[in-house]
């Protein structure tokens, strides 16, 4: 079953083409990792798939419906998006930040309906945040904030989750923890799209990999078919060697 389908999408910024005739599908219950060098167009592809950036040409379908035909709120109820290094400006409590994930479900005025409180408790519990619920979000460590943001993104039970560099700035333990949680969400039936620079981590959690360079999709498909020596060497313009072991794959680069 196809969930999100990006069809022949081109995006231009000024005279530069940042996304060039990209076509790719993302399925429900699968975790797709988007890889590629800096400036390859990963974030642009994610923004287009999230419906935050209208495609110049081409179209994006969510379960067969064009994203441009969906209202903001309708879209927000079905897909969640986390940008790179998300921040919280004010000293809002963790519980409140997670509740913001329900913005699209709430009436224009008034407080939080009681039915949603359970969902918030569930999300706090799922991401081990129960003890932190009253802590101001400005006083969290990087790993804690990453968990809060994932809880915020998934509290409304989205069918599609798009995350840009969730492990940026996290130490190995927290990066692995965040990646495992994304894997769990995909196993639960959510379509998860993640942009990652850490290829070892990508090899560990990805079902599918989309390899991008210069705004073009160079390769996409099952992780083991894309994470190969020739594709990675060509992608990063540096010799890459993939060694597979029982607990995943290690990618080494040789200058």
């Amino acid at each position, binding site marked *: 079953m196809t969930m999100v389908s990006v069809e022949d999408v081109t995006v231009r910024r000024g005279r530069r083409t940042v996304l060039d005739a990209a076509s790719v599908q993302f399925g429900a219950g699968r975790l797709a990792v988007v890889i590629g060098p800096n400036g390859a167009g990963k974030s642009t592809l994610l923004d287009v798939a*999230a419906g*935050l950036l209208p495609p110049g040409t081409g179209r994006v379908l969510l379960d067969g419906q064009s994203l441009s035909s969906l*209202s*903001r*709120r*309708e*879209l*927000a*109820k079905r*897909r*969640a*998006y*986390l*940008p790179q290094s*998300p*921040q*919280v*400006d*004010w*000293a*809002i*409590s963790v519980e*409140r*930040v997670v509740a*913001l*994930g329900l*913005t*699209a479900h*709430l009436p*224009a*005025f008034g407080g939080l309906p009681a039915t949603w409180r359970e969902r918030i408790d569930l999300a706090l519990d799922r991401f081990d945040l129960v003890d932190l619920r009253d802590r*101001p979000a*400005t006083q969290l460590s990087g790993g804690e904030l990453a968990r809060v943001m994932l809880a*915020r993104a998934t509290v409304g039970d989205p069918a599609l989750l798009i995350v840009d560099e969730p492990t940026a700035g996290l130490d190995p333990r927290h990066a692995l923890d965040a990646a495992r949680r994304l894997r769990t969400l995909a196993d639960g039936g959510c379509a998860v799209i993640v942009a990652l620079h850490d290829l070892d981590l990508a090899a560990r959690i990805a079902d599918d990999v989309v390899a991008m360079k210069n705004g073009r999709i160079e390769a996409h498909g099952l992780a083991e078919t894309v994470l190969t020596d020739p594709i990675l060497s060509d992608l990063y313009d540096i010799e890459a060697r993939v060694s597979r072991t029982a607990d995943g794959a290690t990618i080494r680069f040789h200058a």
Partner: protein
Amino acid sequence: MNRWLVPGLILLLLALSGTSLLAGTIWLSPGRTLAALLDPSPDLAQLVIVEVRLPRLVLALLVGGILGLSGAVLQGLLRNPLAEPGLLGVSSGASLGAVIAIYYGFAATFALATPLFGLAGALVTIGVALLLSRSGGTLSLILAGVAVSTIASAGVTLALNLAPNPFAAYEIMTWLMGSLSDRSWDHVLLAGPFILVGAAMLLCTGRGLDAHALGERQAESLGVDLSGVRLLALFGTALGVGAATAVTGAIGFVGLIAPHLVRGFVGHRPGGTLIPATLAGAAIILAADIATRVLRFGPDIKLGVFVSVIGAPFFLWLVLHVRRTVA
């Protein structure tokens, strides 16, 4: 959210409103005040209450409320604890408009010319700021606001420099200091509708401002129409604060202080500060207005000056406090 906050602020406002009717050069007893409000037969007390103190009270509530509300909205919109209505040039625009009215003598021939020109000035400056920042985000809006604000202030200074006679300069200076004295029901009727419409627009931004605490991208992904929120916030501020400044003159710091006074009580949620900040702003202006009437050191102290003298040290504390919590 602390559920005693709003009822507490309303009680405070009621107490201040009562005091505001009693206090002044002539102190009236509560009984006499009540009689004057209920009994239509005109005598001196009735005249003082209904024609002088009541419009002044209503204006203080409206002006203080819109300043506090607009400050809360702008701090949420610009994601900046130091934002206030003056930052976007609304106050300087209104001042320039009013100064033009005084300078060219329109004010002398037609009493309401000053507030009308002030309102026009506010709308023009925010329109220009909005046009300049159309393609950019929050930062370009702040920069455009600072730019038009500076230009408007330069115009005011130029008018003072070129003032044809000392009386015109004096009149401009007095107006710039901000005051609620000698304001009548005409001023309330002129500014009231704009302030109420502006307030309604500003109050609609609450939900969007909450989501905006997560940044522009996340707010958009949550289904918030950010450009809509921005338009509501800016035009609400232009109408409301523009009209307020047009009838009272420039009163700074209230928009800056009021949201901070209540922020801790509402769990720092930007949308949650709107109503408490409105009430706090009204209470500050009302209290300051009573103080200018009760405390007498020779010539009377203008409301805007009084608020600045109290507000500036608070601002300093705020800067230090923000630096401490951020660092």
